């Protein structure tokens, strides 16, 4: 180590300093992040999958071979590979493929929007409570602890019941219930980072509280939030399905993936596994893709990975 430090001092071309300075190219951060993300094969594949699912959902009317709501009772519960119905038919004789294609419209929205809406709120609450701490910070976190004590589904039902049924209200309910969880993650990260000396160094250099929060702390607490947030996306689909099952979510016969899975539950034991399994697998793949993208973003944000 000694030799490197000494060596650099010797190598350092003082005379050529100006030209060296002129040659320095600022490596732009977005470019580095993109490079790091592209190197992560799992994340690239996951992005591909989600883009595909999204496009399919957007162009559902063009792609779906049948009406997702209209069934043919005479063909109910036909299995995979039935002529004309690639993925078979459900208990009411509706084409499963068509329902899957349309279902993305509900399920992907419900997966992403509540998390996206809750994240900035959680970021704000968590960072303020974590950075300023003291009695106010403690009080805020205790209030969140009280919300923690409620089972998520129960809380979501209560909120949805107050707001009334419907997809928008369900998303609002789910978003609200996710805030304490995400805020907790941000809070923990903020407390950890605030204690580090670079924050003190910024303060010593005359940084305002707002500058410390925005420039120093925020980039460092984003990673855990992104990872946690994307891991919640899959859960949201299932949670929304649970709410639909209880009558406060997407109302049947709307083809939500979660609703399709719970529809299939009733015929599962009769030997018609495909009705529940197919949408279940799609949820699994989507959830996995969200998680892997989260990991990819975390790595892309990490300077260790950007430059190695």
């Amino acid at each position, binding site marked *: 180590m000694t030799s490197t430090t000494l060596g650099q001092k010797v190598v*350092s071309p003082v005379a050529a300093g100006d030209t060296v300075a002129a040659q320095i190219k600022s490596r732009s951060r977005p470019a580095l992040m993109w490079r790091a993300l592209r190197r992560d094969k799992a994340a690239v594949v996951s992005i591909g999958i989600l883009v595909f699912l999204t496009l399919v959902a957007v162009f559902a009317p063009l792609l779906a071979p049948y009406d997702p709501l209209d069934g043919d009772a005479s063909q109910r519960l036909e299995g995979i590979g039935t002529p004309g119905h690639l993925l078979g038919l459900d208990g009411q004789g509706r084409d499963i493929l068509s329902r899957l294609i349309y279902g993305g419209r509900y399920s992907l929205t419900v997966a992403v929007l509540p998390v996206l809406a809750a994240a900035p709120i959680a970021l704000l609450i968590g960072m303020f409570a974590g950075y300023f701490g003291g009695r106010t910070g403690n009080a805020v976190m205790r209030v969140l602890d009280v919300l923690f004590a409620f089972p998520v589904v129960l809380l979501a039902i209560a909120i949805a019941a107050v707001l009334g049924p419907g997809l928008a209200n369900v998303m609002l309910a789910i978003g609200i219930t996710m805030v304490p969880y995400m805020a907790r993650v941000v809070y923990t990260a903020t407390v950890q980072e605030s204690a580090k000396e*670079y924050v003190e160094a910024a303060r010593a250099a005359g940084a305002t509280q707002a500058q410390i929060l925005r420039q120093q702390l925020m980039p460092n607490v984003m990673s855990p939030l992104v990872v946690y947030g994307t891991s919640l996306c899959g859960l949201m689909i299932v949670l929304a399905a649970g709410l639909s099952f209880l009558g406060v979510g997407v109302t049947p016969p709307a083809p939500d993936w979660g609703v399709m899975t719970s529809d299939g539950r009733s015929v599962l034991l009769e030997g018609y596994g495909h009705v529940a399994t197919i949408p279940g697998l799609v949820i699994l793949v989507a959830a996995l893709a969200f998680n892997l993208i989260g990991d990819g973003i975390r790595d892309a944000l990490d300077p260790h990975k950007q430059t190695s």
Partner: protein
Amino acid sequence: MSGRDVLVQAQDLRKVYAKPTLFGTGEEFVAVQGATFDVLRGETFGLIGESGSGKTTIGRMLLRLVEPTSGFVGFDGHDVTRLTPKGMRRLRQRMQIVFQDSGSAFNPRRAVGEQVAFPMRQFDLCPKNEVRDRVVDLLEHVGLRADQADRYPHEFSGGQRQRLGIARALASEPEFLLLDEPTSALDVSVQAQILNLLQQLQEERHLTMLLITHNLALVQHMCDRAAVLHHGELVESGPVDDIFHKPQNEVTRRLLDAVLEPVAA
């Protein structure tokens, strides 16, 4: 430079940590009490103490990175403890700090050049288009290369990071430098380089320095005067030679006895 007037003054500084609980305050812990000393312009003052003796807390209070529970801190005639947040931010240009743990002293997600540039921009010390050149000058001055400005903290060794820490502290062109165990995380050969760099910079820039350390040899090497801390209280202070050769206090004697005699190099 007038040699002997007081730049930094600490009077009866006291810091009590109380664990906040939901109902009122909990147990109290006295980290520092009755700390009174002056740092003269242009000198290096040593603050000696074992870990947990409160030396870091005192240093942070001088820069008001930690609020004192009571007491007074003066900086060149300013009452540091009573300045408004805005006035304090302005004064910070004149007082800077070099940290012990260079690993956490830099934000892992920002290029180091940008972090060295921050004080320059914050205190508006030079036109925006000259910031880059000044950063490069500073890096080369502390023994780093210009192209390293765009690197991230993890790409540097401990010794290099400490050089960066010094560069950042000097970026605002301060008069007073607080060195909080600047070498204790480094191996011996790198320690010497950093100390030499600091001495060289002090001479060039007429810096006043406060060196916080548990290492007596460092104090002997670097400091003019020093104070010894024990359990949050100053037990002895004075010229370094007196402390080393005529220790007045039992704690100082114990610290001196505990030092292993260095093998003649």
